[in-house]
């Protein structure tokens, strides 16, 4: 694995060179908050940002995506036959993505890439994207990535990891895709061993700066049904304030549930996939009117059980959360996943109690 040095002016000029082969996407400040946007010619990503308000999952997985279309004109040969729309998956580079957000793509991939079925839209978008990550040196008070399976310098889903070192970046080229991108940008200043060690040193400092954490060690061994039925100890109180707005699911990088809707415009039919949320009452409503998750408590319990227990049991690879802290910051009624995770982890079915702490 190569480690190179990129001076910040080299960085800027290298980005311009990349434009011929890649669509560049990076964090840009709009009004009060940052968001990942397609960068126009000459526009630089704001690499001093902390994190975006909405996660960058929409770069790979847009909020509304056309998946099929057909003609509704009886005279057409392929009348009422659904086909995939023509779409080019141009090479993209996401610049400055934080490790927690990058790691979320590996978690989500388990859902869209299975042995029996593969989602072509998500996979093609993912595979045509190169991830240039920016490590975190100043984690937020609500970041708990290192106890959620990620970390401020986590590089398991990155092609390049950048560490900000003042007037330059130290960059680890982790994959072939990463090397290819660095070459195209003309970033080739090689470094010695010390650079690699310097990155490790910064990583340790960043990790010790993380203030918040969750306990997940006992989640796998807890009984699913015991946790599910702990209504009095856990769910009733926590669900009270929830307004089922779905904000948590929208800003979360690891939430992936979607809705499929058909729409008609003139003589064409469209099948569109939209983000959906398990927090909405309609999510599980049967045509007969029966709703297995008819109450707010049911839905809130589903969200946290899915993230902290069902996913753990199904994939045996940690919780479905990378500790980015967005839901904690943006929930309008301050429902805190850290608190609920600690409650689930410490729940004792004999006494029906748990420790209640949020850190």
């Amino acid at each position: 694995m190569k480690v190179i040095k990129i001076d910040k002016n080299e960085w800027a000029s290298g980005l311009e060179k990349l434009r011929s082969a890649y669509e560049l996407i990076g964090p840009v400040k709009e009004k009060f908050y940052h968001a990942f946007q397609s960068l126009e010619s000459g526009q630089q990503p704001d690499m001093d940002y902390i994190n975006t308000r909405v996660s960058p999952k929409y770069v790979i997985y847009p909020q509304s995506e056309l998946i099929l279309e057909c003609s509704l004109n009886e005279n057409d040969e392929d009348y009422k036959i659904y086909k995939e729309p023509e779409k080019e998956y141009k090479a993209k580079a996401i610049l400055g993505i934080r490790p927690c957000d990058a790691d979320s793509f590996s978690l989500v991939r388990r859902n869209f890439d299975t042995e029996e079925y593969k989602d072509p839209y998500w996979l093609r978008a993912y595979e045509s994207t190169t991830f240039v990550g920016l490590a975190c040196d100043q984690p937020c008070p609500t970041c708990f990535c290192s106890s959620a399976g990620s970390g401020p310098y986590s590089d398991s889903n990155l092609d390049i990891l950048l560490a900000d070192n003042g007037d330059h970046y130290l960059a680890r080229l982790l994959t072939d895709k990463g090397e290819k991108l660095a070459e195209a940008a003309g970033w080739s200043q090689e470094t010695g061993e010390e650079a690699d060690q310097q990155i490790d040193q910064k990583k340790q400092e960043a990790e010790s700066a993380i203030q918040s954490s969750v306990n997940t060690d006992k989640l796998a061994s807890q009984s699913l049904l015991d946790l599910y039925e702990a209504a009095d100890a856990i769910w009733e109180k926590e669900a009270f304030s929830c307004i089922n707005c779905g904000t948590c699911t929208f800003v979360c990088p690891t939430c992936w549930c979607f809705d499929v809707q058909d729409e008609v415009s003139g003589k064409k039919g469209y099948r569109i996939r939209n983000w959906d949320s398990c927090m909405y009452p309609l999510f599980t409503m049967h045509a007969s009117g029966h709703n297995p998750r008819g109450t707010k408590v049911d839905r809130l319990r589903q969200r946290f059980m899915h993230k902290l227990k069902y996913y753990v049991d199904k994939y045996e690879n940690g919780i479905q959360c990378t500790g980015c802290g967005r839901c904690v910051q943006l929930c309008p009624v301050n429902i805190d996943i850290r608190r609920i995770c600690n409650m689930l982890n410490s729940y004792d079915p004999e006494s029906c109690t748990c420790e209640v702490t949020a850190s």
Partner: protein
Amino acid sequence: MVNPYIPYPVRIDEIKTETEDKSLKTFKFVFLNPEDEEKFAYRAGQFAELSIPGLGEIPIGIASSPVEKGFVKFTVFKTGKVTSHLHSMKEGDIMGIRGPLGNWYPWDLLEGKNVVIIGGGFAFTTLRSSIIYMLDPENRKKFKDIHVIYGARSPGMLLYKEELEQWAARDDLNMHITVDGTDDPEWKHHTGFVPTITEQEAPAGTEDTYAIVCGPPVMIKFTQPVLDKLGYTDDRIIMSLENRMKCGIGMCGRCNIGKEFVCKDGPVFTLRQLNQTPKEY
């Protein structure tokens, strides 16, 4: 990469109204491309998404049996936006089918065993598929005794009436047809709720006997204690669940219960598996 969202185009070949209140119709579909029929090779117990372009999709159990070639049949209950539109379509209309989806009844496990099929109302569709599969000359010898207990509210609400009579006349299976009530003096089968008839007619639950139960929640609720009394253990009671679905391939998350997806890890589950899952169905 195969795109699992694209339906196979089909044509409606025949529409038959099954029940006297016209709420249930059986649709016979023929694939527009013959090679799609081979790709659609399915087993009894699976379902498919019936896709109407511009309107939506609905998950419906496959009523035809794998041994019936050249077509696929689905029996659909009229209840919402897509089903209402489907009910108003005509023979010759074009639409789509996606599938086959889900898992199937555990035919490997059932070989060499007695099979008791208990069905109610319009949940009988995949059970029809199963019965025809078992009665096929190639397959009948794989199974020992077959009992079928099927009930509906009234004689006019029974599905597949001609086939039911044909099966009742056979001697290689035991048919127990029942209705909740009737004032038809010609009615020659049982009268009574499905759980009651099950208690009267079903064989004891030995190691060699499996029960496949498929019906409305109220029927299942009262049939379970009967099977319990007859000695059926929870790993020998097989059930088929319903839930709201969209993608049908375990990705959109809608039908998720516990760590299972009803569309992919189900819809067929044993009672033992269901007892370990939250009751959100």
